[in-house]
């Protein structure tokens, strides 16, 4: 299907009122009735993926709520943004979760945070704490970021159930390291159903970004969305603002970003491999992978000033340069880790228990993976070739050649192998980029961010595609939405855990490398220039 075919098909859907095209995105405004046919067209017929949907309170501009749905046609590097308005008095839209199962969560998020109801589906509270009053929606513009309607939330019925048939995992559990709550219903030792209650780490990040911080300050809060892949978030945020404001980032800064992104990926994957070894009772594997990882952490500190939370990104570039001595240090560390980790990785997969327990457990079939639009290593282990670095190249990735490892079994072992292979690729990417790094400045000092521009940006984090969406505002984002990779992957856990032994549950949960703090954070996009000014039809300017 050619690009013009796609545009024609979309224009042919009844209720589409406006289609605007740019280099790598289509912006569609449609009526609520057109939503389902559009979803059918893009998701089912064109085979697109679902990135996320974003609620927005635009009552101050056009007296409406709005929802932006982002679809992606990965193979042609195209984003499709569908905007639908909802009435300000009684916001209600048809749900598309029956056509696009992946939209389940983001619809419920919009319901919690904006009070937009979705018809034709079961509704439940997803994000806000238990005991939060009904009808209070914190992301509405008339809600102040610092008002706290509840300060002593009451506990839900939680853990310590008297029947043995329910096994609670979490919220504080050694296999999770983060507060999330899974209730596994078991029969004997077999899991028959799973209930998930997350969002214990909802800190109101988006609200703060929209109502308290300035554009540059948001970089630092974006980094703190996640302590493991924070740099991905801050890069993604910086890119989205740069794209909205049309800032040309110096090439050298792009190279530095890519290099640090890959270093972060190496640390994150090593961390994950260690945790899995620990879950499998192979503690020596855990200790030794983390020993190797320590070199990466020290390297990160040398390059950025901090072991984690690099604080490197600003809109317009980066804050620290990589000089010759640092470059040598990078190469030295990469040599050490590539030797040591290959030795250890091949040892780990030779441990009979490790092999046996990873193979065939927690299987996610390709069809389910596609239906749920899973991302990152989870998608790649289920046979989907999705990698933002290839599909929508950003930063300096176009200068490096690398493979995207894909495995077809969809089990925990495949997910391990994808990550082990990716470490290898990352090492090679860093080396290639170091060789080609151009001289020059590392940041742009002066820039103006126009108001009312919509932009999207995506970055391939260690856990998968990370999407930031922004509508620019005065001095700070008007709407800023973060879609973390785990947000997209957790719903897949239901498929992976079902009918599996209880003993594999923690392992399978860990196999998506869940990062709940990302997921719980509570927006036009694209690094390569698919942006558009909303002065006319989009009515925000």
């Amino acid at each position: 299907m050619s690009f013009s075919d796609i545009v024609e098909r979309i224009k042919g859907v009844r209720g589409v009122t406006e289609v605007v095209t740019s280099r790598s995105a289509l912006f569609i405004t449609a009526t609520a009735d057109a939503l389902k046919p559009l979803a059918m067209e893009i998701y089912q017929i064109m085979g697109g993926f679902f990135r996320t949907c974003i609620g927005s309170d635009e009552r101050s501009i056009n007296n409406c709520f709005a929802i932006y749905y982002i679809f992606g046609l990965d193979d042609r590097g195209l984003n499709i943004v569908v905007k639908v308005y909802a009435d300000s008095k009684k916001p209600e839209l048809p749900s598309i979760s029956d056509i696009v199962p992946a939209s389940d969560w983001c619809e419920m998020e919009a319901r919690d945070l904006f009070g937009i109801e979705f018809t034709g589906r079961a509704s439940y509270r997803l994000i806000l704490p238990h005991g939060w009053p009904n009808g209070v929606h914190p992301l509405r513009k008339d809600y102040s970021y610092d008002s706290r309607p509840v300060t002593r939330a009451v506990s839900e019925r939680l853990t310590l159930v008297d029947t043995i048939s329910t096994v609670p995992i979490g919220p504080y559990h050694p296999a999770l390291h983060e507060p999330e709550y899974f209730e596994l219903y078991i029969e004997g030792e077999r899991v028959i159903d799973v209930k998930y209650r997350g969002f214990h780490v909802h800190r109101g990040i988006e609200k703060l970004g929209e109502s308290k911080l300035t554009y540059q300050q948001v970089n630092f809060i974006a980094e703190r969305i996640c302590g493991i892949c924070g740099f991905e978030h801050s890069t993604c945020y910086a890119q989205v603002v740069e794209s909205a404001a049309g800032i040309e980032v110096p090439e050298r800064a792009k190279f530095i970003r890519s290099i640090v992104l890959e270093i972060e990926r190496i640390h994150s994957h090593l961390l994950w491999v260690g945790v899995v070894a620990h879950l499998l009772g192979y503690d020596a594997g855990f200790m030794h992978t983390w020993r190797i990882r320590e070199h990466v952490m020290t390297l990160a500190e040398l390059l950025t000033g901090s072991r984690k939370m690099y604080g490197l990104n600003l809109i317009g570039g980066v804050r620290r340069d990589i000089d010759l001595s640092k470059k040598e240090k990078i190469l030295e560390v990469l040599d050490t880790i590539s030797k040591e980790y290959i030795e250890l990785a091949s040892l780990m997969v030779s441990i009979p228990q490790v092999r046996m327990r990873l193979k065939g457990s927690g299987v996610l079939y390709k069809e389910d993976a596609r239906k749920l639009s899973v991302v990152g290593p989870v998608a790649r282990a289920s046979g989907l070739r999705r990698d933002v670095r290839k599909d929508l190249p950003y930063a300096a990735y176009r200068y490096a050649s690398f493979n995207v490892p894909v495995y077809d079994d969809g089990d925990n072992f495949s997910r391990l192998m994808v990550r082990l292979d990716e470490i290898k690729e990352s090492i090679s990417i860093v080396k290639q980029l170091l060789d080609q790094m151009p001289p020059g400045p590392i940041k742009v000092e002066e820039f103006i961010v126009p108001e009312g521009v919509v932009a999207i940006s995506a970055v391939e984090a260690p856990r998968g595609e990370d999407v930031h969406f922004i509508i620019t505002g005065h001095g700070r984002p008007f709407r800023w939405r973060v879609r973390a990779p785990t947000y997209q992957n957790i719903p897949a856990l239901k498929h992976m855990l079902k009918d599996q032994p209880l003993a594999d549950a923690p392992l399978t949960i860990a196999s998506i490398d869940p990062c709940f703090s990302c997921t719980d954070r509570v927006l036009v996009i694209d690094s390569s220039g698919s942006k558009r000014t909303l002065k006319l039809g989009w009515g925000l300017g």
Partner: protein
Amino acid sequence: MKKNPLSLLTIASSKGRVTKRYPFEEPLMTSEFRGKIEIDESKCIGCGACVNACPPNALELLSSSGTKTLRYFIGRCIYCWRCIDVCPVGAIKGTREFELATDDVSDLYELLIHEEAKCSVCNSPYATVRIVRYVATRSPSTEGYVSMDPKCRQEKFVKAIEMRFGGLSA
């Protein structure tokens, strides 16, 4: 590439014990580490540029009778060093200090008290003495504007304009 599980012992013995014996030995730290900040009380002018840049409000400018206090709360600092970037007089410098643990949260506050300048007209405090002097030394002919609070300054300015256009005499 299959390996014998026993080769773990080879890996372990070839690495030996890698543990850094901190606190009895130097920590595993590089020269680039960003630690706590140090505010030079002889240079700070109390302008509040750092306060505006600080993402977590670890730096705050608090007003009370006759003084303006720059409060640094280490317990909320994120060590991003943005304050260092934006300080116009270079009063803030970064250190590699990380040994900050304590059993009393009040240990984590640092206060820098500035005296407030009073408006030469209405006598109400409006800025620190230091910043008034800082501005005055940089622009020698302030025509007395710098020693007034914003409101009086505005009034004086309006009057000056009126005078220039032949309005009421001052």
